[in-house]
């Protein structure tokens, strides 16, 4: 019995060896892409603690996927898509929590972000609020384009035809610029009210 188990652990091709190889591959991908994934999560959420959690969940999802060499060349685009989607899910949750208190909900989960400098955060918060006010797909497109995804990768991430990416980007840039101007000038933003 023992001789059955132990040699299989130390030599030969076993399931565990396969797992080890996958682990090494995972480690390499983690080290190569972690910072980029974290930064993307932070760009969207503006919260370092949350960004860390989101980055971690993104890599756990990668870990749970079977490793596919055909996909690995594009693993960066996949990671950015996943972290961006997770971040927007989290944003939706946070915004709802802010809006409502209910006996059913438990708001102890709200995590303050001590790492941010107040002034910087104010500017960032305004830009994020503008982005959040856009249709979500438009905002995701902007974040993903900014992270460096190509037209084909964007088409894949947003599940649209590659030929429509130019149109969507043109609309998104314009909508973002317009919304920002409105927020910066208008009383709707609240803080810059000089009327």
């Amino acid at each position, binding site marked *: 019995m023992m001789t059955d*188990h132990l040699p299989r652990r130390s030599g030969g091709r076993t399931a565990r060896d396969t797992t080890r190889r996958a682990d090494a591959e995972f480690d390499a991908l983690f080290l190569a892409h972690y910072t980029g994934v974290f930064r993307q999560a932070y760009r969207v959420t503006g919260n370092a603690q949350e960004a860390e959690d989101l980055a971690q969940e993104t890599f*756990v999802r990668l870990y749970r996927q079977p490793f596919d060499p055909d996909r690995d060349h594009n693993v960066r685009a996949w990671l950015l898509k996943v972290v961006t989607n997770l971040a927007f899910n989290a944003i939706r949750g946070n915004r709802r929590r802010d809006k409502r208190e209910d006996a059913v*909900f438990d708001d*102890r989960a709200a995590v303050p972000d001590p790492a941010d400098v107040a002034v910087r955060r104010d500017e960032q918060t305004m830009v994020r609020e503008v982005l959040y006010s856009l249709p979500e797909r438009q905002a995701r497109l902007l974040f993903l384009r900014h992270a460096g995804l190509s037209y084909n990768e964007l088409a894949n991430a947003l599940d649209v035809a590659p030929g429509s990416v130019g149109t969507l980007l043109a609309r998104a840039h314009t909508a973002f610029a317009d919304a*920002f101007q409105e927020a910066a000038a208008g009383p709707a933003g609240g803080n810059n009210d000089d009327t």
Partner: protein
Amino acid sequence: MIRDSGTLQAYLDGALAPDEQANVATHLAGCESCRQQVKALRMAEQQARTLLAGLEPAPAAIPAASATLTRLRAGIPAAKDSPSMAVWRRLNDMRETISENGLIKQTPLALRLAAIGALVVVLLAGMMSFAPAREAMAQFLGLFRVQQFTVVNIDDLARMRSFEDVLESGILGEPEMIRDLGEEQPVADQNAAAALAGYAVRLPANTPEGTTLEKLTVTQGPYIRLEVDRPTVQMALDMAEVTDVNLPDFDTAAVEVDAAAVVAAEYVVDNPYGERNAGMVLMQAPSPEIDLPPGIDPTTMGEIYLRAVGLPAADAAHLAQTIDWTSTVVIPMAGDMGSYSEVTADGVPALLFEAASPSRRGRERALLWQRDGIVYGLMAWNVTDSGMLQVADSLR
């Protein structure tokens, strides 16, 4: 001919086919209107780029990748996800093993309690600590025969972790998948779930306001076999630094678990704005049957298990006597994993766990109980104790 803004944008980004790229350039040379449009697109894009560039984190706020990876791997408290990954890895190992060993069905022999309990450690830690809790819970419910739950508080977290490491090391051998975990099958309603699962399925009649049933599924549990011999178990105990217990006499013991179908009901808890930020998953499954091999005293095995997870010798000996090891899942809890309380749910005693720190999803809780031979687990995030009990108390 005026070009549409999408084509012009793609032209700006160099994303058109080479000949199309040249066509647009030629067109622009003779079309003031399109040149204006390109200018506007470029300005909007430039502004978007500038604004987005202002959203970067401060360099000091970016965690070091290598340290994060180490923490994730080591499973120290800061990396709460690690046990879940261990669960996944174990399951993956099992799936790979089945393809190597084929489907060999053996006569059910025995179940080694120490192995069960140890799996509980790994699975519960995974369940409590991270978002794919549903899958961990499926494993948890699928793998153990449960009539009641008891929590043992463990001070020696390092010992408990080292026991998990021993299990993860594969020293106990590769488990054999006699039947793989089934595919998740969506069903239309409670009756369809019961028909497919083969037992009476209960769902809550009364849920917190804004709760909707998002998904109802039935998953056939796996049939797993793990055979260990005495020297191997002794070696595992040595690795776990438990050197002062005497293993009972046996040559080979086989853990064999035939897990019934697990029914999972996923709920979204919405507020009037119609977006999600809270949810629950109710899982239920009958306990699998387990036999002990003749000559092995459950109390002795229970004591060894308690020693292995880090309980001091005297406490383990005393506690082992007080537990009915044939029907009790003993859950070792270290302080930093979270807290638990004994409550009454669904008219029976239940355990309510709360993870020590919020996950990305929020504050995670789990309620575990057994009634009429069915084990229930209710995982929830951002739902209060009373909301969870309301669900448990209204099962029909």
